[in-house]
Structures are given as structure tokens and as C-alpha cells.
């Protein structure tokens, strides 16, 4: 297998880069969407319940099914892959952001308003920074999850390491089929670990010393 990888080092490296690039961009976009939706709903118990329900249902949709549905309007290629990966990336962040924002001590919000901070300033300077560790935990879950989902996106000819897995599976029994599948799988696991480590580091750097545990 080592031989298999070294012979295709350039291709493996390229697809690994594509895979990580897809995941990172989609997680960023998904996190923004997740936090934005959470900010819109967390003050209302009804909207919160709706958002939580939607994210629970969303996570039960099989990735294959979603990609299949997206094929009709968007065809093969990068667009359905990005939409699907972003969709799954947003859900855990949404859930955690709602929990994080709802968990901010109400007396602190009142104190912020009481000294003359506007709604927006209270959100940006007090609520989001305090909810940040919980939001970040959601981003970590998201990243791990969509590393796998991005592999499935190769089914619609999206970029990334999924290509190795699918081509291996389709040639099962043939030469290098197992090597191909294993290469894709192991590379994804390793990259997921590296990304998680980077996120932990980012968490240390971006969480105030006053609330670090």
C-alpha cells in the first residue's frame, strides 16, 4: 500500500488539499449561517424549539439522499457538494450556538444594557464572547462530521479524497482496489485529527483567560 501512495504522491496530496479546502470553506460558511440563525432565534423559545427540531431532522437526512436531490437542479460538480457539506456543517454549530447564547447569565445581559450598551453591542461584546467556547465545540463536531460527508460528495464528482474510496469500491477485487479505498479513508482520518488539533489551538487563542476552564 505504501508503494501505491508513493507512486501517486502528487495526486494524493492534491486531493487531500482539495478535500481540506472544501471542508474548511464549508465549515466557515456553515458556522456563519449557524451562528446567524442562532442569534435570530435564541430569544424566542418557540423559534428555538423550531430550530433545534429542524437541525435534528436535518442531521437524519442521509448524505447520499441529499446529494441525489441536489443533483437535479445543479447537475454534477462542485455546487451540490458545497451545498450539502455546508448544510451539514451548519447544524451542530446552530445547535451549540443556541445553547451557548441561552446559557449566558441573564443578569450579565441586564448589566450590559443597564450601563448603556445597545442590543448589538451587548451581543457582540458580551453574549457572543461568552458563548464562544460552546460555539467552538460545535465547530469541532461539525468539522469531524463533514470530513466524512465531503468524502461522499465525491459521488457527485465533487473534489477530494472521496474519489479514492469510490473508485476503489467500484473496482472491488481488481488491482489496487483495496489500496485505493484505504488510502482515501486513512488520509481523511489523519486530516480530521490535524484539523481538530488546530481548532483546539484556535480555541485556546480566542477564548478570554477570564472564562477559560
Amino acid at each position: 500500500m505504501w508503494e501505491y501512495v508513493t507512486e501517486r504522491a502528487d495526486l494524493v496530496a492534491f486531493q487531500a488539499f482539495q478535500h481540506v479546502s472544501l471542508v474548511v470553506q464549508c465549515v466557515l460558511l456553515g458556522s456563519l449561517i449557524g451562528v446567524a440563525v442562532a442569534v435570530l432565534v435564541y430569544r424566542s423559545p418557540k423559534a428555538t424549539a423550531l430550530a433545534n427540531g429542524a437541525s435534528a431532522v436535518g442531521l437524519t437526512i442521509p448524505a447520499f439522499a441529499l446529494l441525489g436531490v441536489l443533483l437535479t437542479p445543479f447537475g454534477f460538480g462542485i455546487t451540490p457538494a458545497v451545498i450539502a457539506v455546508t448544510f451539514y456543517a451548519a447544524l451542530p454549530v446552530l445547535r451549540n450556538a443556541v445553547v451557548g447564547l441561552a446559557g449566558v447569565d441573564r443578569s450579565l445581559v441586564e448589566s450590559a444594557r443597564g450601563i448603556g450598551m445597545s442590543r448589538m453591542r451587548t451581543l457582540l461584546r458580551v453574549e457572543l464572547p461568552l458563548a464562544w467556547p460552546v460555539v467552538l465545540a460545535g465547530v469541532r463536531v461539525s468539522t469531524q462530521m463533514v470530513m466524512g460527508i465531503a468524502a461522499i460528495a465525491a459521488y457527485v464528482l465533487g473534489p477530494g479524497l472521496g474519489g479514492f474510496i469510490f473508485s476503489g469500491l467500484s473496482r472491488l477485487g481488481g488491482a489496487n482496489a483495496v489500496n485505493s479505498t484505504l488510502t482515501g479513508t486513512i488520509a481523511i482520518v489523519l486530516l480530521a485529527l490535524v484539523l481538530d488539533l488546530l481548532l483546539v489551538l484556535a480555541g485556546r487563542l480566542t477564548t478570554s483567560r477570564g472564562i477559560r476552564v
Partner: protein
Amino acid sequence: MSEATSAPPAGTVGSGDRHISGVAIRLDGVTKRYPGQDHPAVDDVTLEIAAGETVMFVGPSGCGKTTLLKMLNRLIEPSSGRIHLGDEDVTDQDADQLRRRIGYVIQAGGLFPHMTVATNIGMVPRMLKWDKQRIAERVDELLDLVGLDPAVYRDRYPRELSGGQQQRVGVARALAADPPVLLMDEPFGAVDPITRQRLQDELLRIQEELGKTIVFVTHDFDEAVKLGDKIVVFDVGARVVQYDTPERILAEPAEDYVADFVGAGATLKQLTLTRVGDVDLMQVTTATVGSDSAQVVAAAQAAGDGFVVVLDRRGRPISWPTVAELARTTTVPDTVDERLPVVGLRSTLNDALDTMLAASQGGVVVTSRRGGLAGVMAVETVMAAIQRTRTEVAG
């Protein structure tokens, strides 16, 4: 707007014409109705608070006193009625702008845990677009004012402070932009009794210096008597039952309701009316850290004192060893007695008695405004005061 009214501060102890930076507050038929409730939470309250006075809101829980307080800075919008600050009608002003001119202190200080002490205190000046240099100077000045060393505490986070220290920072933050009015919502409710008493003393000292208009909500009647120039006793719907000086509320409760609220032990409550500074204090032999023990012992024996109060180099009392203890040393030791009972001149006799009991001592060391020694008070002095009030009540 800081020079608005000049009504003399009624019922204040101390110098007659003190500096006033507060403004008057006038409530005119202020009402708060919540949808779906039969009775208004606050029903048509008309109240005038003079500039530079500390007014205490007391009453049972749910009587609407906190709601009324929060309508002053419009955290809760009144359903009807007008609110005036000085000569200004602020009922329809931009609420955020208004709140930057009104200090607000809540229980445990309401400090933002993810910001340092300096950032917390500088929050309002930053919103008012002060420059960095000015904010930094103001932060240090305020930390000094509330009795925290700026060099030590400036860069700490709230969780690295004790409850009492957090509360001090909370007060400093409220005072940051020098607002004429300070609203305090049960600020000292979450600290232990001894710390609470110290914080109350601090507040009295700060208020004597600054002369703000303070509105203070509490459920503790002793606290109201100690801190208030005036007390408002509320019943349900924020009905003003009595609005008067602590002395008069204790002496002539307007209704049975007030008498009940003041409590059965009202004769002993007179202890909260007498300040430590109002009674004669004993002067004792003092010694500065590092001076020759033998000389101090000789001086104490000549004066007939059984103990000596040791002062640190800034003149603050740190311990009170007996003459026998001191005789065993060569120079006066600099050990700080953590259990040394200390009260301020503005503390009440009630506080002094509490402090003695908590420390199991027969006396307390009394400090003056800046922390220097003012004298020593013995438990007998408190007893004499109790005897006196009891005879007065009986006669």
C-alpha cells in the same frame, strides 16, 4: 447638568455643606402594567428625590420596588407617567444614551467575566469615546477610590477577585463616567455580613466625597437605616407607605404595616442609628512596625494600657498584641492579624457589636476615613448605648 439643584442634604451626618454632584429625580404618576395582570406592578407613583441624597427603597419582595428602580434607567419602560432627571424630562430620551449617564450596580457587580477589571471599568467611557489615556487614568483613579490597588487589580479577571472585591469593581464601573445618579439593586445581597458591613462603610465614605444622588433597593431594613438619608417603605404596587428619614420612620412608623416591617426589636434598631463616630473612643498606645519593643512596652505600661495597636508604615492598624506578647519581641513585628476587628467611623454600633461577636473580642479598632487609626471602642460602650435607649423608650 451636574450643577442642577442645591437642596440641602437632609439628615446627613457630617459636614453641613458638602459637595454635591448629583441631580434631583422626580417621578410623576409613574405606572407599570403588565399584560394579563389585574393589578399594576407599579401603581401611579409620584416621588421626589433631592440631589445628593441617598434614598433607600424597602418593602417586601414583589412590592414593585425593583421594577420602579429599573424604570428610572428605563430597563423597564413605564406604561405611563413622566420621569425627570434634574430639569430634564428623560421619559422619551434614547434609553442607551440615558443609561450611560446613570450608574447601575447589581448584585455581585454584574462584571463581565471575559474582560479584565480595567476593561470592565472602562466600558462606559469607551462608549462615550474618551481617549485611551484618559480612560486608563480614570480606571486607576476609581480603583483607588474603591480601595483596590490599581497596580495589583487592573489586569485581573473578575473570577480572580473575592465577592467583596467584585462588588467594589462594580461600584467603580458604575462611577466611571461620573454620572450624577447611581442606581443600586440589592448590591450587597450576596456577600457575607462582615464584608457587607465594610462595603457599606466604603459606600458611605465614597458618597460623602462625591455627593451623588443614590437610589438603593434593599430588603434589609438595617442596611436602609445605616445608608439612607431617606427611606421609602413600599407596599404592593409600589404604594409609598412612608417616605422619611430613618430616625423618624423608627420613631413614628406611619402605619402598623411599617411598624411590622421595621420589626419588633425596634429599640435595638436604634443601635443602627448611632454611628461609631458619635461615641467617645478610647485612645490607646500605638506602635509602628519595626520600632523598639521595649520602649513601646514602657510607654504602654506608663499609660496603663493592657495592649498596643500596631500600625503599618502607612498608619493603618494591622494587629493589637498584649503588652505581655510584645515584651517577648525585640522589635514590633509586622504580622497582619487577619482577625483584627475593624470598623469605620461611619459604621453603626450594630456593626461594631457584630464585628466583636464575629471575632470573639471585647472591642474593635476604629479607623478614620483614609484607613488610619481613630481609636478603640470597647463592648461596654455599646452596652451603655443599649441601656440608654432602653431607658429612653421606657421613660
